[in-house]
């Protein structure tokens, strides 16, 4: 049997009713077709307003779409039952850009990570969950930190690690990263970049990397899609697209970035 893509968006479109989303005035996504194969790191690149975050939200099923189709491991997500939808949430996880907003400020970091286990790893006992929380924190390089502390006691980079640990807690197949580095300082950015690198190596993760940073994407991604005004303008092997672009837009973008 041929390897089936994990995520397959086909001719997918989404439009926003004007007025409801001020930032996306007269913005429409697509049609876009994006496939993500198992074990791949796929970059979705573009400027703000290119539609890349909408793609992330569609993949996460945080938002719906109008036309086209979205298949997850061959199954049409529109035909998902309630149970399928819940199971889906343990297979696809997301890391947001803002590490300050993505953790519940009134929950300890241990509780935030345990939340994922309580919902999706019910068979674990309380003690097993606590042990798992510590393992996950250790995996993201926070092994010496106390899970009983609150998010505001951690720095931005540490919070981003905590968010990664929470996402990993459900043992996802796909990790969607929506600009995970762009609000971090360069020295911390490099640390998290190294963490991603080791996660990709050790966990055999499939990753969707949403970013405007072409340099980071070239380092991390296997394949990339370049988006502009809601459409994919260029796709291909990351090294090739981001060193020898074929489309004018990509070329100009590459020239513009520092």
């Amino acid at each position, binding site marked *: 049997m041929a390897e089936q893509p994990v995520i397959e968006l086909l001719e997918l479109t989404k439009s926003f009713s004007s007025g409801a989303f001020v930032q996306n005035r007269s913005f429409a996504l697509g049609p876009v077709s994006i496939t993500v194969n198992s074990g791949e790191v796929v970059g979705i690149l573009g400027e703000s307003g290119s539609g890349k975050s909408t793609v992330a939200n569609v993949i996460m099923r945080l938002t719906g779409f109008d036309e086209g189709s979205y298949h997850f491991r061959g199954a049409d997500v529109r035909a998902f039952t309630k149970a399928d939808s819940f199971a889906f949430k343990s297979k696809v996880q*997301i890391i947001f850009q803002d590490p*300050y907003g*993505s953790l519940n400020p*009134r*929950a300890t970091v241990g*509780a935030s990570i345990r939340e994922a286990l309580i919902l999706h790893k019910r068979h674990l006992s309380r003690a097993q969950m606590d042990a798992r929380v510590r393992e996950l924190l250790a995996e993201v390089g926070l092994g010496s930190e106390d899970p009983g502390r609150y998010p505001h006691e951690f720095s931005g980079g540490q919070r981003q690690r905590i968010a990664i640990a929470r996402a990993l807690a459900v043992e996802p197949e796909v990790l969607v990263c929506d600009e995970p580095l762009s609000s971090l300082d360069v020295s911390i950015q490099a640390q998290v970049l190294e963490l991603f690198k080791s996660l990709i190596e050790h966990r055999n993760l499939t990753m969707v990397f949403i970013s405007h940073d072409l340099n980071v994407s070239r380092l991390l991604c296997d394949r990339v899609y370049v988006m502009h005004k809601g459409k994919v303008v260029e796709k291909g092997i990351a090294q090739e697209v981001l060193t020898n672009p074929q489309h004018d837009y990509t070329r100009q973008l590459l020239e513009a970035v520092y």
Partner: protein
Amino acid sequence: MLTTPRSYPKSWVEWTAIVIAAIIVLTAVFGGLLAPHDPLVIDFRAKLLPPSGTHWMGTDGAGRDVLSRLLTGAQLTLLSTLSVIAVVLVIGCTIGIFSAFVGGWVDNLLMRLADIWLGFPPLILALGFAAAMGASLQAAIWALVFSWWPTYARLSRMITKDILSAKYIAAADTLGVPAWRKVVLYVLPNAFDVLIIQVTLDIAAVMLAISGLSFIGVGAQIPTPEWGAMIADGRDYVRNGWWIVIFPGLAIFFTALSFNIIGDMLRRELDPTSQRRA
């Protein structure tokens, strides 16, 4: 990065407010036991006595000891205030959080309802209740409950909407956290700060409203030792018995002022914007 200190130094005004509030709360708890005389016993031989060794705050027109009435009244005033707050808090927040979660036309309908409701002046409602139930403290409490819940519904709906748009809620959504769990673990803990500030400020407002209603005669009736009713009772004697009016007046004044100051202090210390990055 500049870190905002969690605890600001408190001024002497704030310390005074805290001490007064503590004294008032303690009085409300033990007031009846501390009262040197029975607050309800009428003794016409001892009427309109100025402050003295036996009656520290004098006696009123029926010879009742003002200090004893004040101490016993603290419990009554504070208890009725807190029951109003507790009820409006529960009703208001339930409606507000429900409204924010459901959204759409239900949200619109509930909020328009709250708006219309806010249009009724509490005084008119109180008069209505007094007419229906007879003027009493209960009538005043019901009137306030009925006129106060929309404030909390609107406030809690606004906070909830705000919380629901946060990224950690999106993160919870990607985990499939059910709605009730979101309310308990995500919304309520994060709404707590704003609500507690509002409650503290409202303690003063509700207390003034109850006393005000009692003063104009639609609330507590004499001989109930409610502070507003005491002032109403004493206003006939202002010329030859200033102490009957002044002491409950001061009690209301200091209680309302201290809770207001504490509310402002909490607002400054718990303000969610001050916890975010500079």
